[in-house]
């Protein structure tokens, strides 16, 4: 069990790297705009476990890649807040990512049921 657990953790971290980026794009595409903590909580509520140490570097990289855009807002004193929105690049990327994801999931289901003696 120990070995499988270790391998699983390793696989999961690789798998989630790309998956999380897709989730962030989905979220921003849906909600319009959001900020770090809210994004983290919505992902966690949706069942995608994510920590600060994963999310903020990802947001930083995606901002650099220009799939999302960040801007500071000062809706009230004391809490200037950095909001993220999806960019046009991000929208185009999301369409392609969804296709890939669906295709991959379908392929996996196909293989899985194939294994049961189709």
């Amino acid at each position, binding site marked *: 069990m120990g070995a499988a657990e270790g391998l699983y953790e390793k696989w999961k971290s690789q798998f989630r790297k790309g998956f999380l980026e897709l989730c962030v794009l989905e979220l921003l595409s849906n909600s319009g705009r959001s900020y*770090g*903590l809210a994004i983290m909580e919505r992902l966690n509520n949706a069942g995608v476990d994510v920590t*600060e140490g994963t999310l903020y570097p990802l947001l930083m*990289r995606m901002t650099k890649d220009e799939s999302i855009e*960040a801007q500071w807002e000062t809706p009230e004193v004391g809490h200037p807040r950095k909001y993220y929105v999806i960019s046009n690049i991000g929208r185009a990327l999301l369409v392609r990512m969804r296709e890939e994801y669906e295709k991959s999931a379908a392929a996996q289901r196909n293989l899985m049921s194939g294994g049961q003696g189709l």
Partner: protein
Amino acid sequence: MTRKEYIDILAQRLEGLDEASLNDIVLEIEDHLDGLAREHPEKSAEQIIDELEPPESLADSLRDAAGLGPYGERESGAPHHTDQTGQPEGQAEDSSSPSAKKTVRIVIDDEDLEEAIRKAFDIAKIFKRNRDEKKEGSLKDVYNLSFGIKGTELSDLRHVSVRARSADIRVLFSNGELEVDTPEEEEPTLLMQHAGKDVLRIATLVGSSEPDRINLRIPASVDELDISTASGDVHVVDRVGSLSIVTASGDVVVETCEGDVEVKTASGDIKLAQCQENLKVSTASGDISIQADDMCNAIEISSASGDIMLVYPDGWGASLSISTVSGEIEHDGLSVGRRRVRIGNGLVPVRISTVSGDVRIQKEE
């Protein structure tokens, strides 16, 4: 680990990142911590920090995302941005003791004054940058509830939170319902939002014109009232229950409050009288004037450059501990060098700290 230590280590290990990005990420994480603190009032600041990913590994991942090499491959040893003591060897020290390089450090409840001032400057930079960029967009689409003038029957309400920019806010006591009105405007557009079952948020809308003034009548059933403004003044005429006020440049006056009072400003002046229970007051450059009440439990005052004046009634008993770096201390007209002053029976603990402000302690005439 304290919050300051966390941020210090994070900032230090992000060395090599350009200043704007560093500023950005530090403030973003600070906002994250503020958010967590608001959502988990039951947790201490340290508890929240302890549940986070260690700052070292967060920094490592951020470095990676920013395309920087691992921490430690230092090129020039450029001074760390919070290190203003001019000790070059501070950089080489173990990151687990960032406080070691400070020559003077004033800490009030985990919050380092110097850090608070730096943060205020960082926030000012963002204000400026936003203004320069004239970014469009607002929060209007999130919730936009035009609020008819008064009469919200909210007997279950325990916590009211008010946010405004330039509007002055006046707080009065209500024997009955909670009332909100804005005298000048016909139909003020305020955002009223339930945040949790017993919490009400009132805010002025971003991008729309604000009323000049917002009047609040708050019943005693509301345990907590917090108010924050940018330039708006806050005037509390009468309040029963705890009170927390934050402003940037707005002045704060509290005439009467039966309940704990906490006030923070950047440059706004603070004037408190007849405040009972516990008082906690801090400012960067505003002046502070407090008229101590017989019913006070404890007082904590801090400033960076603002002057502090404490007037106490005849027969009052308090033990004062005063720390100032370059300011003067005066007690009943006499200059004192002592850092500890005892008045009467010494019952009420009073802590005063300032960097360059003068401190005056005076008996009521």
